[in-house]
């Protein structure tokens, strides 16, 4: 039974978990969410720009979007984070005097997320029937107003599930920012777990980190399913007043 005990002690040492949990919740969680939300938001903005460029009639814009997407989708996250974070770090330090790795970490995560989000948006926009653009143009709207008011809003709705998936991977990828060197107050969930594990030689803090990631991501995956379902079947129809009246009438 020694081996089993050893295993349980290595992975499920409740005391070690309890010790790391407060800092994980008060420091790690806000930092992880800051990284994921800000790069998710910025990634959506840049991604939309890439998507619109990608379907532009101007071939130069199309190519720029294509090249950007291919590069940032094709390079491993860890390489991008190191290149941006460590490569641009000294310049940022000279310009601003700040050694905070968050801005560059967020930049690196944003640049990568934008490549994926751009493709998601582009596929959504291109899936909208041609007749929608035509009907909008026929009303007298120009190309850009038609895209903004009619085509893009429909395209975004169709890809909401894919967008949430992308956000889930951002939550996970944000852990890679530890490569840039973090002060104790800058650590995100993974780094806190990893530090505690390294100090104690016990892996339980990492299990705690994993559990916390699941707490964040599992509800999101279910949100995806909910949105997907809602988009497929539509909002539950509001009943007409007479339909509502009928069951009441029956009871009376």
């Amino acid at each position, binding site marked *: 039974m020694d081996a089993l005990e050893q295993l349980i002690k290595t992975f499920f040492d409740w005391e070690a978990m309890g010790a790391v949990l407060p800092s994980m919740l008060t420091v790690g969680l806000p930092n992880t969410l800051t990284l994921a939300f800000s790069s998710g938001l910025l990634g959506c903005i840049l991604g939309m720009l890439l998507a619109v460029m990608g379907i532009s009639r101007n071939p130069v814009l199309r190519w720029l979007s294509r090249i950007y997407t291919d590069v940032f989708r094709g390079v491993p996250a860890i390489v991008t984070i190191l290149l941006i974070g460590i490569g641009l770090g000294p310049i940022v330090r000279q310009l601003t005097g700040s050694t905070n790795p968050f801005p560059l970490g967020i930049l690196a995560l944003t640049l990568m997320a934008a490549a994926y989000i751009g493709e998601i948006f582009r596929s959504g926009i291109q899936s909208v029937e041609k007749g929608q653009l035509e009907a909008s143009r026929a*009303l007298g709207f120009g190309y850009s107003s038609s895209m903004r008011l009619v085509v893009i*809003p429909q395209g975004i709705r169709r890809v909401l599930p894919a967008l949430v998936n992308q956000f889930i991977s951002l939550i996970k990828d944000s852990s890679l920012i530890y490569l840039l060197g973090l002060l104790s107050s800058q650590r995100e969930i993974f780094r806190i777990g990893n530090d505690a594990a390294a100090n104690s030689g016990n892996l339980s803090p990492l299990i705690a980190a994993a559990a916390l990631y699941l707490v964040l991501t599992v509800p999101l995956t279910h949100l995806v399913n909910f949105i997907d379902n809602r988009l497929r079947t539509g909002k539950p129809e509001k009943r007409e007043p007479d339909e509502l009246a009928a069951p009441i009438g029956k009871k009376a």
Partner: protein
Amino acid sequence: MTEFTSGTLTGKNLHLSFGHNHVLRGIDLHVEKGTTASVIGPSGSGKSTLLRVMNRLIEPDQGDILLDGRSVLKDNPDELRQRIGMVFQQFNLFPHKTVVDNVSLALRKLRKLPKDQAHAEALEQLDLVGLKHKADARPANLSGGQQQRVAIARALAMKPEVMFFDEATSALDPELVKGVLGLMADLAKGGMTMVVVTHEMGFSRNVSDTVTFMDAGVVVESGPPEQVFSAPETDRLKGFLSDVL
């Protein structure tokens, strides 16, 4: 039906090619103010393309388009299309907006009306097509015939001088066709200038003032409905009529 400020529309020697495919080969079409011109012909004859060229959704390679006698080819095409309403075979309502927002969108964003006023005008238009009670529904929850009537209201809300109908009843279930055709006939009676691309020979014969028969990108015959339907001159028109009637 309300009065319309309709205009006279003329297409002169319109040509259009997609690569080697010469779709329009010198089309002339004149629609006098307040009249209805129907355009008939086999599929692939260029009827729908003609409509799209005449409101410059597709720019013609050659020829001229005149509205009330003035060439509109140098105008801003977006402004031209505000003056020409268009109704499509597949309705093309905006599914992410409610029925009333479908109608008021262009009023708000193009006519720059305040929200309340645009909403009120949209409701008025919906009332005209008998669908005011569906104002807050989504297009997907309407029947095809209702959707097409909303599409007509959406086009009419911009107070167009000319209305285009591109096979407006072809995608409808047979029992819904009549309502839409009736609405179109009302518009014609109300003095709207209309160009109606249609496979509904009854409508073409009874409602329109002129009938134009197109085949392979040219106008083969045109004239008043009695003449075109009762005394066709060309073999192509005779053949087409015997196929569809």
